[in-house]
């Protein structure tokens, strides 16, 4: 096996303070304003994006993935604004994105799917086979790599989706509801993978499961009705709740307490 040589790019110092920085971000989903003025700074680590359905999680993640242009406000990724066309391509090469309802070609094998995504992400040709194998290995699909996607279960397809998101070793990894359709054992393995990825990547995971956040994330971002309701650690989230709040665990009670407080304040 050939030794992996660490390139100059990987050891280059970062010239930005935060991977993701947003100021007064407003986003539209169709005709509706889904995100109304959000200030956010996210660095390395796993950030759990929490919120009720329709809070604007998917819209926010789409904007971070640069597929949705902000209606107002500023967004900086790796300290650069994703506006200019040439700059946008460079930025996107360093982003991994798993949409909520992600589609795929049913006849592709797992390997073909991840290879195709690697090609779309403009990875150098020579690096593709090794990177694809590593990504498939990391999500635990190595033994099914050459099976067609249509033959896989929902949980495995989602893992293939995660593999395509991490194939380019992204600096920003955006996962929209990645735990949907995973069974408890897979969910635990996935949390482990998240913690591993979070050591050198800015991971943003949206979920409506408070437990995912409490166990796998180093930081919590709570949004409600398009506004930032809370940003802090999972411990802060748990501490915010009291016995009288709705929920079965400290984190859930904290979640409902913070939501209620945010709605009252308006």
């Amino acid at each position, binding site marked *: *096996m050939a030794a992996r*040589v*660490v390139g100059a790019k990987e050891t280059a110092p970062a010239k930005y303070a935060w991977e993701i920085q947003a100021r007064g971000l407003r986003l539209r*989903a*169709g005709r509706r304003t889904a995100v109304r003025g959000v200030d956010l700074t996210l660095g390395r680590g796993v950030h759990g994006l929490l919120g009720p*359905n329709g809070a604007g999680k*998917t*819209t926010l993640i*789409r904007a971070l*993935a*640069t*597929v*949705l*242009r902000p209606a107002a406000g500023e967004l900086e990724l790796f300290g650069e604004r994703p506006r200019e*066309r040439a700059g*946008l*391509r*460079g930025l*996107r*090469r360093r*982003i991994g*994105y798993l*949409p*909520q*309802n*992600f*589609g*795929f*070609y*049913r*006849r*592709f094998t797992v*390997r*073909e799917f991840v*290879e*195709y*995504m690697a*090609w*779309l*992400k*403009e990875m150098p*040709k*020579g690096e*593709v*086979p*090794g990177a*694809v*194998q590593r990504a498939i*290995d990391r999500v635990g699909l*190595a*033994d099914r790599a050459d099976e067609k996607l249509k033959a896989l279960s929902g949980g495995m397809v989602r893992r293939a989706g995660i593999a*395509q998101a991490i194939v380019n070793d992204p600096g920003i990894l955006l996962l929209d509801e990645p735990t949907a359709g995973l069974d408890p054992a897979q969910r635990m393995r996935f949390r482990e993978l998240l913690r591993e990825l979070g050591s050198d990547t800015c991971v943003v995971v949206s979920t409506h499961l408070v437990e995912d956040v409490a166990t796998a994330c180093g930081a919590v971002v709570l949004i409600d009705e398009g506004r930032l309701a809370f940003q802090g650690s999972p411990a802060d989230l748990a501490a915010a709740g009291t016995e009288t709040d709705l929920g079965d665990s400290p984190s859930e009670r904290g979640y409902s307490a913070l939501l209620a407080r945010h709605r009252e304040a308006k």
Partner: protein
Amino acid sequence: MRETGMHASTELITRYVAGDSTIGAHTEWALEAHLESCPVCRARLAEVTSLSASGMSALVDQGWRKLAPVMAVNRPAPARRFRVSAWVTPAMAPWLCAAVFVALLAVAFGSVPDAGSVLFLLAPVVPVLGVAAAWSRGLDPMYELTVSTPRAGLALVLRRTAAVLVAVLPLLAAGSVLVGVSPLVWLLPGLACTLTSLALGSVIGVERAALGVCVVWLLVFLAPVVARLEVLPATAPWSVPVWGGASFLAGAALVARGRALTTLGPGFDEKGGR
């Protein structure tokens, strides 16, 4: 790469392999950094290891033997020279079939007396269907994933459109030559329609724009062609500057608005996300 001539001595490497703690942390660190980038010294390291630390190399060999069955499963596929999916995707199949069907239809009706009119009417629709195939958010399940990648945008749309045209245009051209109509009759209007649907597509979505252009084209020219006007619009003296001008304007608009093809586009949320 490091300069040749600057290499670690065999003596130092031997001490390093033996785990000699008198080397000193800074020397050891420098040696390891050097070994990472110097194949000559790595080769020397391997030699020293196999000679002086046979117990160690036996242990390593045992480790590799254990790993072998796992690595046989985890072998990466060889790099591909040509990737079909770089040009056509499975989602393009329905539109591609439609384009081929219209092309065949145009050629089949080419034997009627007024072959030029039929080809003029139908041929420009063919590349527009190709455009719809290239960037179809309704039929392409991977639309959102594709749009989020660096390769998304005008270049990828044009690449896929070109793939469809390579499949369909020879058919049309051969048909027109067979029935004795110059392909120039429909080539320029076809170009204008293609560029218009792409430019319009950057505003309202490519698929919608392509369908719109097809419908408008057929509505506007169906009547004169059916009525057998004496001078066909395509062969009229004004036609070349008009089609040329329309193509130029649409092309300019497309270049200016090309960035829109890197975002999801208006109205995606209603269809796509929850």
